[in-house]
């Protein structure tokens, strides 16, 4: 990453917040650049919404700070109130003001003359493609329309940053996918930085350039989606962001044995490795071969663009394998399994930073 002279838009350091002795957020630190879009991904109750509210200024931290362009806006001692931060926020239930029309909702945060307000409202209604709904009341709108209005309302005062708290979770699947794209494009077009909280990894991947993976109040990993998917820092992360095959490592005669062969480390890492993680699409199936690990196909799920197979190795382990749907497999068919890309983890679930290779043990020798 290139170092910038300017301070980032948002800089969090050691943020912690507890509710009645339950730690919601513990020691979280990260940066967000101007017009960057990031998402906070984690299971429910991991503290991601609290983190968002800490940045918004709706909660004050027990420890740590939030800075805006290098100047502190949140700390246990001093808080810039949320209304002075010029951040926008979109809530899970949209929180449209039920007693105000669509245009009054959008105009609510806009400062300036009546004419300025009107033109800003018209501009935003155009942007969300709903100019015909200006005079409607919120309860007359569909869920998707309410969502768009909520986004327009938060964009109206030209915020520096938009915070989105699970904004798609109240919508049905089809609508969710569509709106996700529309709103992402809208935010990019407006050049507004965004921070999306979600528990849905697909949402995080499609919405943003960067992911902050959280669990148990802590930031587990911070990086772009493919990096996190391919190099998850912990076993928990590996399982959370996708499907993962986990294989045990046995240490016998100085070898690191796995059902798929013997592990060899480039830097000669010792017997630390306990688990090997392989994504289903990183396993390749070849015709049976004595010199490779053998197995047979147990079940086949056809899922359109991919085929999900379960393969039982001769040693008994079952693995999930994703392949192209072009090759037709049959249940009970014998195959050999070749891993391509994999990661190793130690006993505490942390990834080992050492390149390794898996050398199959030919079935004849054992």
């Amino acid at each position: 990453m290139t170092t910038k002279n300017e301070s980032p838009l948002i800089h969090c350091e050691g943020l912690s917040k507890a509710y009645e002795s339950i730690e919601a957020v513990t020691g979280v630190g990260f940066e967000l650049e101007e017009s960057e879009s990031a998402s906070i991904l984690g299971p429910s109750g991991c503290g991601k919404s609290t983190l968002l509210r800490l940045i918004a200024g709706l909660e004050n931290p027990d420890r740590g700070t939030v800075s805006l362009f290098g100047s502190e806006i949140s700390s246990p001692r001093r808080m810039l109130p949320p209304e002075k931060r010029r951040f926008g926020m979109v809530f899970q239930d949209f929180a449209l003001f039920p007693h105000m029309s669509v245009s009054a909702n959008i105009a609510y945060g806009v400062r300036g003359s009546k004419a300025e307000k009107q033109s800003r409202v018209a501009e935003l209604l155009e942007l969300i493609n709903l100019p015909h709904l200006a005079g409607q009341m919120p309860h007359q709108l569909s869920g998707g329309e309410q969502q768009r209005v909520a986004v327009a309302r938060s964009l109206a005062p030209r915020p520096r940053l938009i915070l989105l708290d699970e904004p798609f979770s109240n919508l049905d699947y089809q609508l969710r996918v569509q709106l996700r794209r529309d709103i992402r494009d809208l935010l990019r077009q407006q050049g507004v930085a965004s921070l999306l909280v979600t528990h849905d990894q697909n949402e995080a991947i499609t919405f943003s350039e960067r992911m902050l993976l959280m669990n148990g109040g802590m930031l587990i990993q911070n990086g772009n989606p493919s990096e996190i998917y391919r190099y998850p820092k912990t076993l928990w992360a590996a399982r959370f962001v996708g499907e993962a095959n986990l294989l045990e490592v046995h240490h016998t005669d100085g070898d690191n044995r796995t059902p798929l062969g013997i592990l060899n480390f480039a830097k000669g890492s010792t017997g630390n490795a306990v688990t090997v993680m392989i994504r289903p699409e990183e396993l390749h199936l070849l015709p049976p071969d004595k010199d490779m690990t053998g197995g047979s196909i147990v079940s086949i799920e056809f899922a359109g663009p991919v085929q999900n197979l379960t393969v039982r190795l001769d040693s008994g382990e079952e693995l999930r394998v994703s392949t192209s749907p072009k090759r037709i497999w049959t249940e009970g068919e014998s195959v050999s399994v070749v891993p391509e890309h994999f990661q190793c983890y130690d006993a505490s679930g942390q990834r080992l930073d050492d390149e390794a290779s898996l050398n199959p043990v030919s079935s004849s020798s054992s």
Partner: protein
Amino acid sequence: MRINSLNFFALLLVGVFAIPAFSLFSLALDSEAEVWGHLSSTVLPVYLGNSLILLLGVGIGTLVLGVVSGFLTALYEFPGRRWLEWMLMLPMAMPAYILAMVYLELLDYSGPLQSALRDFFGWKTPSDYWFPEVASIGGAVLMLSLVLYPYVYLLSRNAFQQQSPAFTEAGRILGDRTRYGFWKIALPMARPAVAVGVSLALMETLADFGTVQLFSVPTFTTGIYHLWFGTANAPAAAQLSLSLLGFVGLLIALERFSRKQQRSHGNASSLKRSKRRALPQHYVFLAQAFCVIPVLLGFLLPGWMLLQWSWQSLPGWDSMRFLSDASHSLLLAGVTSFFALALAMLLNFGIRQPKQRLLKGAFRLAGLGYAFPGPVIALGVLMPLSWFDQQLNQWFFDAGNSPNYWLSGTIFILIYAYLIRFLALALGSVESGMANITPAIGDSGRMLGSPQGKIMRDLYLPMLKGSLWTGALLVFVDVMKELPATLMLQPFNVSTLATRAFAYASEEMLKQAAPWCVAIVLTGLLPVILLNRKLRSSAVPQETSHRLMPVSTETHLQPA
């Protein structure tokens, strides 16, 4: 800063509400055991017996009237059903003591009914025929049942309506006939709601003073009143109060338990209501009669009589006296509603702030006031305030100037007592309004650049408008109707519509009381109209009905 001031407010409130209770306890425990021994050997068994008979009678009466009429109007279609549905609520507007006054006059020896009977049959003296005595415990049961059954009616009607048609349909497919459907499916499922309704009606029964006083049925409330006025025996009155509170506590426990059950008795998640079935032709008249009778006896007939008597008493009508009483009533009701709403707003906003355990406790305590019968609250506020006045007098006038009743002899004490008793109504209304406003609304306002004050003005107040009016109206009307606490606390020369009407009635000048009663009943109609409108317009009827019920204590009585 902010949090500290809220905590201070909470403590103040706890004090305001706890002082009367505390003074009752200390008064009751402080006195010699002889008083208690005397009480328990003489009047206590009588009070206890009468109260039990009243509870049993009113329990059965409201149960039968309320459940059957609720069942019929909720699930069946028959001519007149739409009218009866709202008319069945009308007796709520009639305070029990006014109903008692009307029937005392109506069924008296010299009253119109007995006179007519005598003329018709040619009887001359009371010994010629038998006529039931209305001023009896049976009469009290009848009066109270007639005005209190709407609680059970409303709650059970809702419960029946909410039951997903799937349940009864399932029952019918399994071969149930209607009769069994009622006993085996509909009624057991509505049972928790019915129990809530009955326990509310029973609480009102225990708190009733006017009816039993007029009918000379000695109970706890009249006992407290007489001990205080007749013998000024405060310790004994306090002990009676505590015994009464024991009863009330049992009912609160019952109500709380039933509410919990109500929640677990899986009401249909959808808003789909049961469709009404046509009532078989030969039952139609029976159903109509069953629903008309309580309306007729509980509202239409007494209402008509009151109007007639008002007309008759018009020539000698003391309009100045009426206006003065009405203005006192309006003043007290208006001031109390204003303070109740202000407190309710503050408390409701307060408990939305983080870390407000103390305030939440105060909130629940304040909600309990409604369960305290008027005479008990009156006694509870009278003691500490008159003590305060004494101290003040000693301090100011130890030279021997004339003492003054600074607090205990002014309308301040009335408003204080009303607030304790009726704050729950305002709290409940504001709370139900707030429940519809998610915290995200306030957060949105702040994120859009509005400070707290502007959010209150632009967002909360307009969104709460309906609830605020409802709360104000409920408190207003209940203050207008309130009798025993007002009787015990009213300052010299201050009389309200209710106390004047009661005073007339006590002097057997029932007809003269009619205009006062009409005024009270007319104000009492306002919340009934409001309730009816809400039930009709609301898309979610089950939500509003018991919120608007005079006792919307469900949340305050629940442990958080």
